[in-house]
């Protein structure tokens, strides 16, 4: 019991990390559900890296990283929309171009800074153990906003995930609600990077929601599973990193991915057993 609770009850930074982590998990569960349903994994990944130059510039000039991240995300989405509309290239080419361009730009900018590798690691993997109260409050507001968007747009988001044409005919503008969805994903990435870093936020977007997709019969259930798996990853990841002195952000994501594979394997075994039982019943 001591091993499981004491790290959080005796260390303020661990408790704050856990609270921030749970908020990030909720935001990522909601946004990640639609990332998976709408096939937006690549843009989610790209947004994670696209915000890098924004953060780098913000750090260099002494601005809050979150503002730089927001500008970087806006630039990414604008650029992707522009290339997709003005050329015959598909959106994944546009996303790839901006993704790699922004990532390189970010690294180039950071390489000007004195503590190059320190800053880069911090941006890529986050500093969940250094989260302060203001960052938690920002995360709380963002999580509430993301949840509100998901509730208000529940019908158009469901239709959009089912069949965009159906959504359009039903009177829900595909362009509008797709952009609202991108905004929601971008907000998630922007506020989560401080906790788990730009590289790892993507893992929290897709691993818990992906495991949820395997188990759920409804979108609401998928999100609930994702919240559960995300929160569990946070707790176990923090605990492991505390006891074994490992990098916290990476440990959390590793746990999330391991949970996905446990669910995946368990489901396959169960399906096989069900099929086997049916065979016996018929044979």
């Amino acid at each position, binding site marked *: 019991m001591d091993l499981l609770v004491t790290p959080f009850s005796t260390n303020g930074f661990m408790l704050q990390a856990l609270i921030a982590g749970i908020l990030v998990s909720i935001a990522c569960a909601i946004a990640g559900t639609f990332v*998976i*349903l*709408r*096939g937006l994994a690549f843009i989610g990944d790209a947004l994670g890296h696209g915000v890098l130059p924004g953060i780098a510039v913000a750090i260099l000039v002494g601005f809050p990283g979150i503002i730089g991240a927001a500008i970087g995300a806006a630039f990414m989405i604008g650029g992707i929309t522009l290339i997709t509309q003005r050329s015959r290239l598909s959106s994944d080419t546009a996303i790839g171009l901006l993704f790699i361009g922004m990532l390189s730009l970010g690294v180039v900018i950071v390489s000007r800074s004195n503590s190059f590798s320190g800053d880069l690691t911090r941006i890529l993997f986050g500093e969940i153990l250094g989260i302060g109260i203001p960052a938690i409050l920002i995360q709380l507001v963002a999580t509430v906003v993301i949840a509100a968007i998901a509730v*208000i*747009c529940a*019908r*158009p988001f*469901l*239709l959009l*995930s*089912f*069949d*965009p*044409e*159906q959504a*359009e*005919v*039903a*009177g*829900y503008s595909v362009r509008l609600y797709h952009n609202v969805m991108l905004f929601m994903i971008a907000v998630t990435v922007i506020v989560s990077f401080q906790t788990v870093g730009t590289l790892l936020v993507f893992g929290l977007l897709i691993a818990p929601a992906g495991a949820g*997709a395997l188990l*759920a*019969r*409804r*979108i609401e*259930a*998928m999100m609930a599973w994702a919240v559960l798996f995300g929160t569990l990853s946070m707790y176990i990841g923090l605990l492991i990193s505390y006891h074994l002195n490992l990098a916290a952000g990476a440990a959390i994501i590793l746990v999330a991915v391991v949970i996905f594979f446990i669910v995946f394997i368990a489901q396959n075994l169960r399906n096989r057993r069900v099929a086997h039982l049916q065979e016996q019943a018929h044979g």
Partner: protein
Amino acid sequence: MDSREKSASPSIDVGASTPGIKGSPYVAAKHLNIGYSNEVVVANISFELGQGQAIALIGTNGSGKSTLLKTIVGLLTAMGGQLSVFGMPPGNNHSRIAYLGQFHASGFVLPIRAIDVVRMGRFPLYGLWRRMSRRDDEIVMSAMRTMGIEKLADSPLRSLSGGQQQRTYLAQVLAHQADLLVLDEPTAGLDAGGRELYLHAINDELCRGASIVIATHDIQEEAALCHQVMLLARRVVAIGTPQEVLTPEALLEAFGIVVTGEKRLHVLECKHGHDDMERLGLNKPKL
């Protein structure tokens, strides 16, 4: 506009080939050009569809059937000529139009039960906020019974067979209780039982006063049930009643096939007394 003159389509007197339209037509096309990406697929389409009427679009893949359906529901913009739906440009009457497309992109990723799919048919009536009532649930279940899938209500969509999924999508269309149904190959994947339920259902929809536009390959049954048939082959080959249009010569031109044997031509009759429909008061035509 020059395509109007250039078009080689036989001239169609809309009034003469549109029997018995009462009031203003639900769909009216006049010298309409349809297409996408700046390419006209079919030029000079003219027809009118009145309340309680059905029109079948017949033609090979790529003949322009789906393009016409998408233009009517407002997914594609008309490339010339006039098209009005309920007296307005397309895309303005979401609550009155139900559309069944050919492709459902993420039916297998999306965790969703059959009943949730059917419930989506009620969304256009309620926007973002307005709550659905118990009556909506009854309508949803009634639509599922009509398509014979009420026992599958709680099944995940991805666990259903292709035919069961198609029945689910059709139930979704029925649950809308729309004034205009626009259906793209609605019988695709249906077994004989499913087709029977579907034909019965569209008959009930017509009796309710709804109008229907169907793209189909089924010239024997489905098209023969409609009041009008339009034969498409990247142009309007013929339009008129099934008896007028479904001639061996016209079919040969549109499909390049020779159709032999007797065509079964039914005449639509409203058969009242479908229990669910009666109980829910759905037989009364909406005005």
